[in-house]
């Protein structure tokens, strides 16, 4: 715990997003319901980079949607700056896994969309858009339409569009999972650069790729079990966890792959897993 604050350096520590005993139940109809998440307690502080890991169907996207106010918890609450989150807000940006660019708008217009929908005049935001475009390396593509972009460029535009309006938190749901490995590495670096460049930037990223989760995150949580809970959390802010060839990195990766990989077994015997919470990993360099 003491290593925690020193490793995060100058970053602030006020909690922005807090989950308190959050549960989410989906009702298929009157008779059957499905508990997707249960007893979720989570704190996202200003400047954090949290990664959420878990098997497919484990409830990662559900957790992210709860954090963004896209769905409301069945019980418990999500606090944003200390008050219950009322719903979707531009202060919490979301990048979806699938392409959500507007096909009738150019790169530049897509990035400026957040200003346009709030009635801003073009002259008020043109500079900001220009800035963001240059930052993400899309200035040469400014006049292209989404169908003329590669998959990686599309994801960069999506991220840029959310960043342009300067949200307090950026949520990303498997933003790179549709990309090949080389491109994914480039975009991981790109995202990390953005996070490092912006002092206040707070990000929560969902992924099923263990390596990505360790590489990008400062904090890592694993969602698993049935119903989904946080079965493991680790502070991975130490520098060893940004070197994918470091022994600590590889050990943690192996451990997490086992945790996530063993997941399906628990479906067969849910009761034995009801109380399991994974070993607490604390980092020390």
């Amino acid at each position, binding site marked *: 715990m003491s290593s925690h604050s020193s490793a995060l350096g100058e970053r602030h520590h006020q909690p922005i997003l807090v989950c308190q005993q959050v549960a989410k139940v989906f009702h298929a109809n009157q008779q059957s319901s499905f508990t997707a998440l249960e007893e979720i307690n989570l704190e996202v502080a200003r400047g954090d980079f949290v990664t959420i890991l878990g098997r497919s169907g484990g409830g990662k996207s559900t957790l992210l949607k709860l954090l*963004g106010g*896209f769905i409301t918890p069945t019980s418990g609450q999500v606090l944003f700056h200390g008050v219950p989150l009322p719903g*979707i*807000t*531009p202060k*919490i*940006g*979301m990048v*979806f896994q*699938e392409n*959500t660019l*507007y*096909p*009738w708008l150019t790169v530049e217009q897509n990035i400026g*969309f*957040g200003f*346009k*929908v*709030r*009635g801003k005049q073009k002259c008020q935001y043109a500079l900001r858009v220009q800035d963001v475009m240059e930052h993400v390396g899309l200035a040469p593509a400014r006049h292209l*339409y989404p*169908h003329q972009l590669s998959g990686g460029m599309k994801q960069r535009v999506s991220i840029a*569009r*959310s960043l342009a*309006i300067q949200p307090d938190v950026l949520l990303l749901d498997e933003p790179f999972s549709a990309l090949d490995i080389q491109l994914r590495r480039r975009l991981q670096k790109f995202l990390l650069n953005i996070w490092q460049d912006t002092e206040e930037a707070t990000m929560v990223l969902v992924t099923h790729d263990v390596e990505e989760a360790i590489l990008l995150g400062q904090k890592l949580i694993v969602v698993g079990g049935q119903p989904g809970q946080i079965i493991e959390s680790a502070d991975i802010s130490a520098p060893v966890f940004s070197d994918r060839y470091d022994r600590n990195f590889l050990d943690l990766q192996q451990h997490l792959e086992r945790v996530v990989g063993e997941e399906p077994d628990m479906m067969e015997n849910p009761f034995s897993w009801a109380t399991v919470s994974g070993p607490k990993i604390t980092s020390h360099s």
Partner: protein
Amino acid sequence: MVKGNSGRLGSISRSLLPLFCGVISCVVFVGVWEVIGANPENPIAQVLPPPSKFLPVLFESDFKIGLGSQSASIYQSVTVTLIRVISGMTVAFVGSIVCGLLISLSKWSELFILPILGLIAPIAPIAWIPLALVVFGVSNLTAVFIVFMGVFFTLTIATVAEIKRIPENLLITAENLGGGNFVRWKFVIIPAVLPGVFTLLRLNFIAAWMAVLAAEMTGLRDGLGTVVMTGRNLFNSNLILLGICIIGITGFAVDRLLMMIQRKFFWWKV
């Protein structure tokens, strides 16, 4: 080098190929027609005079068709018909998008209104002609109304369907970026449905075109349909053929125009 050149040539000839073939087949078609129609004894030539017979009618009559005070220039006939079709389709296009948006505001309006639209949509626009003549008299309004009835209902149903088809995340993203309800309509829903509805408008152009010509043949006193009817009344097959020809060429031109509009303004897929 050789390979590159042949590739480029190939692509040029491929893009010009349809035009080339189209011109050839038209020339051959007219040629055969001329040969058959050259013999005045031939019964076909009486009903279907070849272009060399009916085109001169244009010049002989100083581009005017009809008798005395009722005569109108060809140019006028074409314009009148075009204005009727285009205004009817424009009103129907805008109206159906507005109505589609309003209907999709509530589940109940969908449930109650869509069945009525579904019942009215299949009525052939021609069937509205007598009613329109009674209500609007012999006027441009009649023609515009018929065109409107021919496409409006289908397009409204299509608009509602297109709105349902919009990926939810496009709307959620707009909300996430700070857009309110009205803004989401204006900046997401309308642009998202435009191309689909316009495509259907294009496909329904033939119906609208037929409707306006039928109206002109049965009731109205000017327009392209009237040219054909004048030919019939005067037992002048040259005039009939001339009218038919102009109807074909104008219809083709409008269809191309709509395609161009689609490519230039409504090209995206959602």
